[in-house]
């Protein structure tokens, strides 16, 4: 009991995320009889494979105090490359090429952000457009398609009731990145440049290395997500996948990252993504059109942001009023002392 209390006070954001995920799940489990079944569990894990990667990528970026807007374009480019070259070179080669391209793009972005000392949103809004152009070029401005559908079948094979090769790969990815962020120096550097950039730079951490690592991981995750989508559906469009940014951001913020950086973690990203997936899957049962899902996600993001901003402003006010009280108290003590000194002479 004592340990639970300690956990709650130490990680309020994570507890909030777990509670939100639990309540969303319980709501749909009660209202939809088909929701709490093995089949729906499999469907949720299948969605998790894609959205989890994007949520993970955005979580890492936001921990580093930046945001990667080009994630949708990067995923679309990887999907186009994979689907286009699978027929000629085999799935594995095409997949590796796409991963190499998207990771390199991410690393280059990170390098330029650190070298030019600009905010990531500035550069990534440019690369959003640039990568779309590259993807259009790579796809010849058509929707590219697979002809051999054995690969999509393999990717969504059911294993161990809930999992498929894709979702197992993504879970492994989560574990590796989680260990990397918690137990290595490079991971902690990422937290440092996000939470207290000036102090981190002053203490000798270079801005370049963590930036390149973060954006390379982000590019890798975006690319892998795009590849999974592309191979699973067998088609890819150069201008598609832009919805990933909103869903991934919602997942990251539910998972407890702060826009100021330096907060949050991989477990939060997983729980945030699961919450979004519960919502998405549950709304499918109600035959909700996709634009309503977007509306709900938008409201969810605004509510989380309002909550976070409100608590920050409240804390600041609290701190300021505490400071003023402190000053007042000391001033009154001083006034008393002065009065005491003056009394005998006056």
């Amino acid at each position, binding site marked *: 009991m004592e340990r639970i209390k300690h956990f709650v006070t130490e990680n309020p954001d994570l507890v909030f995320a777990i509670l939100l995920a639990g309540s969303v799940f319980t709501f749909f489990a009660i209202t939809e009889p088909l929701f709490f079944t093995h089949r729906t569990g499999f469907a949720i894990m299948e969605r998790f494979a894609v959205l989890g990667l994007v949520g993970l990528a955005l979580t890492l970026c936001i921990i580093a105090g930046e*945001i990667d*807007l080009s994630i949708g374009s990067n995923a679309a480019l990887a999907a186009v490359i994979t689907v286009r070259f699978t027929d000629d070179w085999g799935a594995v080669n095409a997949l590796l090429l796409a991963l190499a391209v998207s990771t390199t793009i991410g690393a280059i972005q990170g390098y*330029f952000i650190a070298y*030019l*000392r*600009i*905010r990531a*949103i*500035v*550069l990534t*809004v*440019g*690369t*959003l*457009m*640039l*990568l*779309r*152009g*590259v993807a*259009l*070029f790579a*796809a*010849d*401005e058509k929707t590219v398609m697979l002809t051999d559908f054995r690969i999509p079948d393999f990717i969504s094979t059911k294993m161990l009731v809930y999992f498929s090769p894709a979702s197992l790969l993504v879970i492994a990815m989560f574990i590796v990145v989680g260990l990397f962020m918690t137990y290595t120096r490079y991971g902690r550097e990422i937290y440092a440049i996000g939470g207290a950039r000036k102090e981190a730079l002053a203490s000798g951490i270079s801005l370049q290395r963590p930036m390149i690592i973060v954006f390379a991981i982000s590019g890798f995750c975006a690319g892998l997500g795009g590849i999974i989508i592309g191979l699973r559906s067998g088609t890819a469009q*150069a*201008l598609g996948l*832009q919805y990933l*940014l*909103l869903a991934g*951001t*919602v997942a990251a*913020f539910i998972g407890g990252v702060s*826009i100021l950086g330096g907060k949050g973690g991989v477990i939060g990203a997983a729980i945030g993504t699961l919450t979004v997936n519960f919502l998405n899957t549950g709304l499918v049962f109600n035959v909700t*059109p996709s*634009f*309503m899902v*977007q*509306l*709900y*996600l*938008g*409201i*969810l*993001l*605004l509510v989380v*942001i*309002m909550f976070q*901003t*409100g608590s*920050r*402003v409240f804390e600041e006010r609290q701190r300021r009023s505490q400071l003023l009280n402190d000053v007042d108290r000391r001033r009154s003590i001083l006034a008393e002392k002065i009065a005491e000194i003056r009394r005998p002479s006056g």
Partner: protein
Amino acid sequence: MTDATAMSVDDLNFIQRIRRDYSPLVIAMVGLFIVVFVAGATLTDDFLTWFNVKTIIRDAALVGIMAIGLTFVTLSGNFFLLSMKEIAALSIICFATLMGAEWNQWGPAEGDPTTSALMMTFLVAFAATMIIATITGAIQGALIGLGGNPIVVTLGAAGLFFGIGSWWSDNLVVSYRRPHGAEWLGTGSFLGDIPNITVAFIIIAVAAELTLRYTTFGRQVYLVGANRAAGRATGHENFGMAIKCCIIASVCAAFVAVAFSGQVSSAHVNYFSSEFGSSGDMTIMVIAIVMVGGNSIMGGYGSTLRTSLGAIFISSIDNMMVLNGFNSGARVLAVGLMIVFSIIVFALVRRGSRAVE
């Protein structure tokens, strides 16, 4: 004979001064770009004709008006709104629904409606659209002003507005019949062969530039953008400023929506996502214009004149590529390259002169 050792700043000629102020890399990049542009302009047939110049400015008008609105937000230090096209989508649905509504038809029940009746219909729909745009802008501005990150707030707001717009129109095309009161704005031209939308673009550009330069509000925008702490110390909180600037951006987006709806006599939420222009996405195009124009994304530096020129510049590059028979992929690639290029150049130029954030 000048003494080489005692050469003052005034003795430097133009080229020497440029070489002193900017690094060789920047000079090489800008020089290469100018050479490519001039070569393209002279080698492309029919590019340098009066008709084509009019086409370029007309194409720049709609995105340009939106970008002028967004410039206020950028100058006040609030980055940019990722919800521009969703605001426009909500506005165009509102406008078209009211234009087509049964109760909104003044004048005789039978026969052709009179001009004044059409005008009244237009004014009612226009006013309602502007009110909606003001509300959307005020909501986003308030959230940003309270300390929310502009990117994340507007990303959420974008989903919300798009959802409301789709829900209102049932995700269908809303159309209304000609003749209607918005034709003069969409396709008409009072000044001979210059379309009205071009005139509107020029008027809005001039008005925005004068506002920024010569009014108290304009100076306050620059102050809050350049130094937020100084702004707060002199009584100009970002709260009010963010609301005002977001309302300006929203109203500009709504105006573009009305003009575009007037052209096609219909509305759909996806008009600004997929079918508009070559580049697919209106929001990114608008942000591209603000950046290519050379406004500082951190705020406090830039002008709407730069934005207008950026719009015309991107439009002329696009036009040049169309005349040379490039596909949309190449054109999107070119715009993307221009944004990244201008980001890098402006970051390098400003590196020495401005304090790093």
